[in-house]
C-alpha cells in the first residue's frame, strides 16, 4: 500500500466532502451539520462540538479511505469510476443503515420512539436522514461520489 498517497488523497477527499456538505447547508439544501453531529458525541458545547466534530470527521475520512484503498488493491486498479462506484455504495450505507444505527451509537441523540430525554436531546436523522431536509440524501450522495472519485483518480499503487 502506498501510505503517503492514501494519506494525501484521503485528506483531500475528506476536505472536499466536508466542503460540499457545508456548502449544501449554506445553500439550504440540507440542515445536516456533520461536525456538530459528531462533536456532540463528545461535548455538549455547541462551539466546541463543531471543532471536535471536524477533527473526528477528518479521522473518519482517513479511516474510510483505507477501505477504498483496500478495495482498489483487491481489484488491482484505482480509477475514478471505481472510486465513484464505491462512493455510491458508501453513501447508500450511510443513509440507510448508518442513520438507522446512529441514535444507538450517539450518547446525546433521541430516538423516534421515545422522544427526547434529559440526556438525549438531539433530533435523530430518520430514514435517509430525511429529518434533516428532504434534499439531504442528494447532498450526501454527491459528497460521497466526489470523495470516491477523488480517491479513485488520485490514489497510486
Amino acid at each position, binding site marked *: 500500500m502506498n501510505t503517503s498517497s492514501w494519506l494525501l488523497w484521503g485528506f483531500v477527499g475528506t476536505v472536499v466532502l466536508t466542503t460540499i456538505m457545508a456548502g449544501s*447547508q449554506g445553500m*439550504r439544501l*440540507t*440542515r*445536516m*451539520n456533520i461536525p*456538530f*453531529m459528531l462533536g*456532540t458525541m463528545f*461535548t*455538549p*458545547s*455547541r*462551539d*466546541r462540538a463543531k471543532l471536535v466534530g471536524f477533527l473526528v470527521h477528518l479521522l473518519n475520512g482517513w479511516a474510510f479511505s483505507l477501505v477504498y484503498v483496500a478495495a482498489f488493491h483487491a481489484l488491482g486498479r484505482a480509477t475514478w469510476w471505481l472510486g465513484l462506484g464505491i462512493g455510491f455504495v458508501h453513501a447508500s450505507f450511510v443513509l440507510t443503515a448508518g442513520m438507522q444505527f446512529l441514535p444507538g451509537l450517539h450518547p*446525546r*441523540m*433521541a430516538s*423516534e*420512539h*421515545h*422522544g*427526547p*430525554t*434529559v440526556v438525549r*436531546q*438531539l*433530533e*435523530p*436523522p430518520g430514514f435517509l436522514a430525511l*429529518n*434533516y*431536509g428532504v434534499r*439531504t440524501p442528494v447532498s450526501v450522495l454527491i459528497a460521497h461520489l466526489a470523495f470516491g472519485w477523488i480517491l479513485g483518480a488520485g490514489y497510486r499503487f
Partner: protein
Amino acid sequence: MEEIHDHGVIGNCRSAALVSRRGTIDWLCWPRFDSPSIFGALLDDRAGHWSLHPTAPFSSRQRYVPGTNVLETRFRTAGGSVVVTDFMPAVSEEEKHELLLAEHEILRLVRCEGGEVEIESVLRPRPGYAQGAFRIRDAGKLGVRIHTDQGLMIARGSVPLAIVDGEEIRGRKLLREGDELYFSLVFAADAPAVLAPGESCRKLYEHTLRFWRGWVSKLRYHGPMREAVERSALALELLVYAPSGAVVAAPTTSLPERVGGDLNWDYRYCWLRDASLTVRALFGLGFDDEAEAFVSWLLHSTRLTQPRLRVLYDVYGNAPARERELDHLGGYFGSRPVRVGNAADEQLQLDVHGEVVDAVAHFVRRGGRLDLETERMLVSFGDYVCRRWTEPDEGIWEPRSGRRHHTHSLVLCWVALDNLLRLHDQGHLAGIPVERFARTRDRIRREVETRAWNPRLRAYVSELEGETVDASALLIAWYGFEPPDSERMRLTYARIREALGAGGGLLYRYRSADSPGEAAFGICSFWGAEYLALGGGSVEEAQDLLETLCGYANEVGLFGEEIDPVRRVAAGNFPQAFTHVGLVNAALTLSHRLRGRTPHHRGIPAADSEGGAAS
C-alpha cells in the same frame, strides 16, 4: 390586533419576540433581529401568532420577574388564575460548555395558581412575512415539525398538539391548582436540532433567571428612578446582538409614528447616530464590556466605507437590506405601507462622524487605548469633516424632503474636530493636521453662533437662517458646545418648551409639514430633563420632569420611539433603544449632580494610564 403599549419583550441577545398582555406572541423574527418574521400579527392579523391564554373570559397583567427579562403574564378568570412565564433561554458562556442548547427557543411555562382554568395554545406560523412556504408535520414524540425556507421549527408541549387544516397547531388542557404545563418552540438551521424535554424546562428557567440576575448585578447606579434605569438597561441588553456587539434601534418594523400614517420604518438595524449616547449610557451604568464591544463593532463595521460612514448598518456591519414595501400586509391598525429594509442608508448625515468620534472619546475616557489603525481612521474622519461640513445634509431626523444646512449636523462636525484635537492634546492621537482641524472647528463654531442663532426667536434654530426650533438643539449643551446655563441655552430651552411642548413634560422633535399628527418624541423629552439636570434648571425641576416622563412607560417599564401626548402610551417601533438611552443618560446626569459631581465630564485623561485597546 393588540396595541403597541400592551406588550412586553423577551429575547436572547440575538433575536426578540413581543408578547402581548393577552398572552400572544405577535412579533418574532428568527434567527436574527432583521430576519423575516415568523409571527407578524402586530402588522396584520393574518401574519402569524402564538396565543396562549384561558379559554374563558379573563383579565390579565404583565410583569418581569425582578432583575430579569423573563416575562410573566397573569390571567384571572371567574374560575381561577394561571400565570404564563415566557422567555428565551439564556445562559452564561461557562454554562454553554456544559449544556446542550437549541439555537433559538421560546419556552412558555404555565402554572395554575388557584381554582380551575382551561388554557389553549394556538400556534399559527406564517414565515417570511407571511409570504414564505411552510409545511407542518406531526413527528410523534419528537414534536410537530414546521418546515420553512429559513430553517426547521419544532413545537412541543406537555399536552397533545394537533395540526388543524395544515395551518396551525393547537393544544388545550384544564388545569387545577398547582398543575404545570410547558410549551416550546425551537428553531434550527443546523441539524440535528436540540429538543429540550419537559423535565429540562424548569432547569432552563433557573439558568435564565441566574443569567439575567448575574448580568444586572453589574449595574452601578444608585440614583433616582433606579427601577426605571434597571429596566432600561435590561431592555437595552435585549437589543444587543451579542455575536458582534451591535445594538439595534428596535426589534420591530413599521410600527407607525402616527397611527394610520405612512411614517413606518424598519428599525431592526444599527444607527451610528446612537453610538455616542449609547456608549455613554453603557459606560455610565457600569456595563463596560458591552460598551467596549459596541465601540469595537463601530470601528470594525465602518472599515469598508471609511472615511465615509453609512447612516446605518446591519448587525455585522453590512449595508441594510434594500428597502421595499410589503403590500400584502395591512399594517398596524391600517398604517401602511409596511416596509422592510431601510433607504435612509443612502442619505448624507454629517452628524454621524461626530457621534462616532464622541463614542471613541468616551472609550478613551474610560481607560481605553487606540491602536494605530484606529488612530488613522479617526484622522480620516476629521479630514472628511473638514472637506464636507459646508454641504447640506438630511440631518438627524432623516426627512425625505431634501438636504439643508442643519444646526445639529454642524454642531456634531464641531464635536468631531474638538474631540480629535483633545485626543491629540492628551497624547492619544498622533498625526493630525492640528492647525487645519482647529481652524475648521473655529469656523464651524462661528457659523453656528452667527447663522444658527435666530435673534427674533431668541433661540438656536433647526437650520442656518431658519425660523423653526428643533429639540435636537438641547444637545448643544450636552456636547459641550455651549454651557447649559448660558443665556442662549436657557432661551433656546424656553423656546423649545413653548414651540414643541406636548404637555405633561413631553416634547415633539420638531413641527413641520413632514410631521402632521406625529406623537411626542421619547428621547427628546428625556433630553429636556437631562438639560435641566446638566445645569439648565434646578435639581428639583430635573427630578420632577424625569419622574413624570418615567411614568409614561408601559406596564412593564418599556418605551417606544414616541409617546402619544393624549393617551400617554407608546407609539412607533417598540421597544426603542434610543428612548431608553435617553432615560438612562438623564438619570445619570441627575445622579451626578445630586452627588455634587460635574454632571457631564468631557475631559480626556492623558495617555499614560493603562487600559484596553480598541481594535
